[in-house]
């Protein structure tokens, strides 16, 4: 049996965002599908702006070798370069092990320092000492759906590339704002700009789901970060504290927005469960097939995007799952052991390992159900190591009073504080009925 996240698409997005899966998608393919006229536009654009676009390199200090690559572009006259947070994340985690530099189109390199980060929107600002060039500008208004836009970056370290594609608007189904771009973004292009026909920054390359389906961080998020960085007088030193504050602010907003929405319930078997809550989660459904002797229906809802903190750690996720099970052709003893084995297999919906979190501790008890039945309730939390006051919570509840029917409810909250955990937990128990 697989894990209970039947969200194949989702996990692909996760992976490519990680840059861990170097899905070798051939770039030639991308270029061959665009028309001749667009190719010409792309060439002109690239020639005009190529001096403001860089390859960002994370260098291992001891080995003196590249340890990570991304793209970036000049956004201010005083040498600020924008890229993705996930490009520079290694440096934020281990500043003594790595240093930053850029290489421009002509092959010249220069040292960079980290100036500011935005983990929620996966953005970072780095600064070059001397960079006497004109910065790239942001458009006054967004393109319309269907407009051709141009993604620039250095995929797989093979040299700068322009990839034309289509602007498909802000993805309405994700809480973390992303522009849906129909075009191929590949590893190494992360942090590169996506320009409209006038050469203005519409968005920043961030992730890909493969097959010409890519996502961009809106330029507006970068504009906000840029303003914050430019207003700051003393340079930012404690990036850990900056990340913690961003995570705290984000979960405050996300959970209160979630609680402010009306929680619509829907029937699942004989139980009443929480439906899809746009734009926080997307839901999938499943049911048992003919081969299985028991009957089950389930629904699983999960945030579309998570906050990347490092290759092994993501946060900012809300997810919930419900199962309704009936014995079907199984006798009650076989059904019970199926149900028990299912209950054993729940896992949290965000990645985290021993460098970033502690082990889960759990409270478990038997509770009365609204209809007079009895449930077993397991509530587990684990604390974040570097971001004090933030936790992952896992809620698991199953009915224990019927021999031939059962219901399971589960939710994961990743990166929440006590107040928000408490509020979400109580609302969840109030609304769900089996």
């Amino acid at each position, binding site marked *: 049996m697989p894990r209970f996240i039947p969200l194949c698409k989702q996990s692909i997005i996760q992976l490519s965002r990680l840059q861990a899966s170097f899905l070798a998608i051939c770039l030639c393919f991308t270029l061959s599908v665009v028309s001749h006229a667009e190719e010409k536009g792309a060439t002109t654009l690239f020639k005009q702006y190529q001096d403001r676009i860089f390859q960002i390199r994370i260098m291992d200090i001891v080995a003196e070798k590249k340890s990570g690559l991304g793209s970036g572009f000049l956004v201010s006259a005083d040498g600020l370069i924008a890229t993705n947070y996930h490009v520079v994340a290694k440096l934020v985690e281990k500043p003594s092990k790595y240093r930053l530099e850029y290489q421009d189109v002509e092959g010249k390199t220069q040292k960079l320092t980290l100036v500011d980060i935005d983990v929620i929107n996966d953005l970072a600002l780095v600064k070059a000492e001397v960079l006497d060039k004109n910065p790239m500008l942001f458009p006054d208004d967004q393109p319309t759906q269907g407009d051709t836009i141009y993604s620039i970056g250095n995929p797989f370290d093979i040299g700068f590339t322009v990839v034309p594609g289509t602007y498909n608007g802000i993805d309405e189904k994700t809480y973390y704002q992303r522009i849906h771009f129909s075009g191929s973004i590949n590893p190494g292009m992360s942090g590169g700009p996506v320009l409209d026909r006038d050469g203005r920054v519409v968005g920043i390359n961030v992730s890909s789901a493969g097959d010409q389906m890519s996502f961009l961080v809106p330029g507006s998020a970068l504009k906000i970060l840029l303003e914050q960085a430019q207003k700051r007088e003393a340079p930012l030193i404690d990036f850990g504290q900056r990340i913690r504050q961003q995570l705290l602010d984000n979960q405050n907003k996300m959970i209160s927005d979630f609680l402010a929405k009306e929680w619509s319930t829907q029937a699942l078997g004989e139980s009443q469960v929480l439906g899809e809550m746009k734009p926080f989660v997307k839901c999938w459904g499943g049911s048992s097939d003919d*081969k*299985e*002797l*028991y009957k089950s229906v389930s629904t699983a809802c999960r945030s579309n995007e998570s906050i990347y903190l490092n290759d092994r750690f993501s946060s900012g996720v809300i997810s919930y799952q419900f199962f309704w099970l009936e014995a079907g052709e*199984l006798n009650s*003893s*076989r059904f*019970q*052991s*199926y*149900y*028990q*084995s299912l*209950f*054993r297999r*729940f*896992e*949290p919906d965000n*990645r*985290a*390992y*021993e*460098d970033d*979190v*502690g*082990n*889960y*501790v*759990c*409270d*478990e*008890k*038997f*509770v*009365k*159900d*609204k209809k007079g039945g*009895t*449930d*077993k*309730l*397991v*509530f*587990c*939390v*684990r*604390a*974040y*190591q570097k971001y004090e006051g933030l*936790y992952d919570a896992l809620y*698991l509840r*199953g009915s*224990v*009073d*019927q*021999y031939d029917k059962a219901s399971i409810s589960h939710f994961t909250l990743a990166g929440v504080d*006590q107040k928000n*955990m408490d509020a979400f*937990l109580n609302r969840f*128990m109030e609304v769900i009925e089996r």
Partner: protein
Amino acid sequence: MTVIEVRGRGGQLIERVRCHNEQINIGRAFDNDVIIADPYVSAHHLRLRLHEQGWQVEDLASENGVRYQRQTRDEAEHVQSGDQLRIGHTELHIYHDEHPVGQALKIDGGEVRLAFLGRHFIWPFLLVISSVIMLLSAYQHSFNEYKLLPVLQPVLWSILGVTIIAAIWALVGRLIKHRTYFPAHLSIWFLFGLGLQFAEYCAGVIGYNASSGMLQIILSKSLNFFLLLVAIGASITLATTLLSNKRLWISVGAAGLLLSFQLAGEVQWDRDFSSSPKYYTQLQSPGLLWVAPEDEEISSEQLSDLLGRAVVEMEKIRDAE
């Protein structure tokens, strides 16, 4: 007067012969005083002649000769009471009839009672019970179609495992006591297996009702230890001639050693990081729930307490790095 103790291969006692003659002939032929049924012994192998201090040994030009295992170093072909000779594959122990013997052993009630387990209806009965329980549990844990072969395989492996353990004990008994008690060992270890399953089940149900995964683990480990102690103790009683207090200490030691290997792994697991919760008890059948449910609520105090424990747990992982 002379007593000759004849022992075969592996030191197994064959007979003790009292001889009144001053001259004793030993060999495979039927006209000897002591007849040895060992094909490596010559028809007329040797002659013993009694004199004041012991016996004079005379090799009658035997095929394989005579080897001496004497308590005193003596150049001459001369042995004293208690000395051993080796001819062919046979040991001869030579004694005067005044040679002292040790005190009689008290009959071991434990051994007699345990030997009852070797009766030929007990172990097949336990084998059937164990197999039926394993098959039923496999049936219960199959949610799709029920296929016989994959279910039968682990059952056969378990039976083989028990048989091997019993055979090892039987071998120990054979060597130490010249008694195997194989069926009795078989019964003991089948009972152990059944006990283990029952203990696991009880620990599960108690832990579930107490809502404590930790209690379940402690309970199951203690019961494991107790069962292992009893089973090892029983097998030692059958296989060795040790006195009861020595048996107890050896069983405690062996069970403790085996369990501490297991616990060492367990402690490591407890310290290790896991990306999913480790300690929550599993569900049980509705009929096995005895405690009354509480109100549907997790209070702010409970939550604070839980988060406090999570921070302590996190610090353990962080500091271990």
